[in-house]
């Protein structure tokens, strides 16, 4: 995705056990912070189909 022009930080992958509540909170915090830092995504967004 990075290659096609979507910032790397928009996609996170993590392995969290149902018992790891604190890790879950940390990861969610990290993800939202990273995405807020990037701002709204403009690439790969379709609001209306382009038609002539």
């Amino acid at each position, binding site marked *: 995705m990075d290659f096609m022009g979507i910032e790397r930080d928009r996609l996170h992958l993590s392995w969290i056990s149902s018992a790891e509540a604190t890790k879950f909170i940390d990861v969610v915090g990290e993800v939202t912070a990273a995405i807020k830092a990037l701002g709204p995504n403009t690439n790969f967004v*379709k*609001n*209306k*189909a*382009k*038609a*002539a």
Partner: protein
Amino acid sequence: MTDARHAVRKTGRHQAKANRQLLYKRVESMKVVKIDKKKWDQGLAALKGVYRIFSPVKMKDAFEFKALEENENPDLGGLNTRLSAKGLIYPQTEAMFTYTLDESREDHHIMSPVETDYSPRAVIGLRPCDADAFLLVQRNFDTPQYKDPYWIDAYEATTIVGLACENPCSTCFCTSAGSGPFNETGLDVLMVETKDGYILKSVTPKGESLIAASGWNDEISPEEAQKQIEPLKTAAEQKISSVVETDQLKNKDAMTIYNAPFWDDVAFACINCGTCTFVCPTCWCFDIQDETHKTEGVRMRNWDSCMFPLFTLHGSGHNPRGEKVQRVRQRFMHKLKYYVDKYNDGIQCVGCGRCVRACPVNIDIRKVCSLMNQPENATCAAQS
């Protein structure tokens, strides 16, 4: 060329022309003007005040039709455009209606027509074959029974200035497909490049208005124009080296061609992409789709292709043309037999040669047409 082939060419063309001319109005008192290359820009600027101009423009590595910007000029030096002019009247994706699902709005779930700009447009520099193709396509969109408003409005808004084709490609076979490099049928103005400029000859009232709007007023007599055009026309026609044989298509029984042994060989190489249908100026099939984003939606129509399995897939899951060979046969049967039988006006092909050039695996309509024209002579010799 053998005499027999020459005869086919002549009769085929004559018959097709006679029929197609019924579809549009010509003027008897045609007006002809001469344009000096210096005055070309001036007239073009004047036209831009009245019309939106579409012309071939060199894009990356090919010529394509495009709306000209303020300071842009048509690029008339190329061979045939990669895609045909079909999309100018009948875009690949065209919005038909919009709708909203937002129930707080009074017009929710109601289709509203799309405002499309049908102000006067002019297409400058398309080839006569592409113009002729509009008349074939008109058969589908503008019938006594059904009128397709999108196509008709766009077509009526358009004035077509065709550039006589002095450098046909080796794949062009317009002269045996009812058209020709200087063919006027379908044009509003015929434009011929001469040594020192252009000759513009109006063929319809629309064309006369365009010439009037341009300010090009160096009028010459039709006889004088004819004298200059004729040798160029003959020279161009002589450059066309390929021919399709169509004389037997009408007489042959449809089922004889349908069941002929050559279809498996013709279809073998086909990868069932939509290239031939998308580059074709006379392929008219479309698919209607609704696309909704959040609460707002568009009903649009997109070019479709009989090469795609989805084209005929039923809701039940049954597909009457589920096999590749059936789809390949359908495309050629439609163009070269069903159309011929239904409209009695030659084949549904203008001989632009685009499908021949664009096919990734070199399936050649000229060869297929010959096979269909003489199905009894065809063994499994599709590739010979």
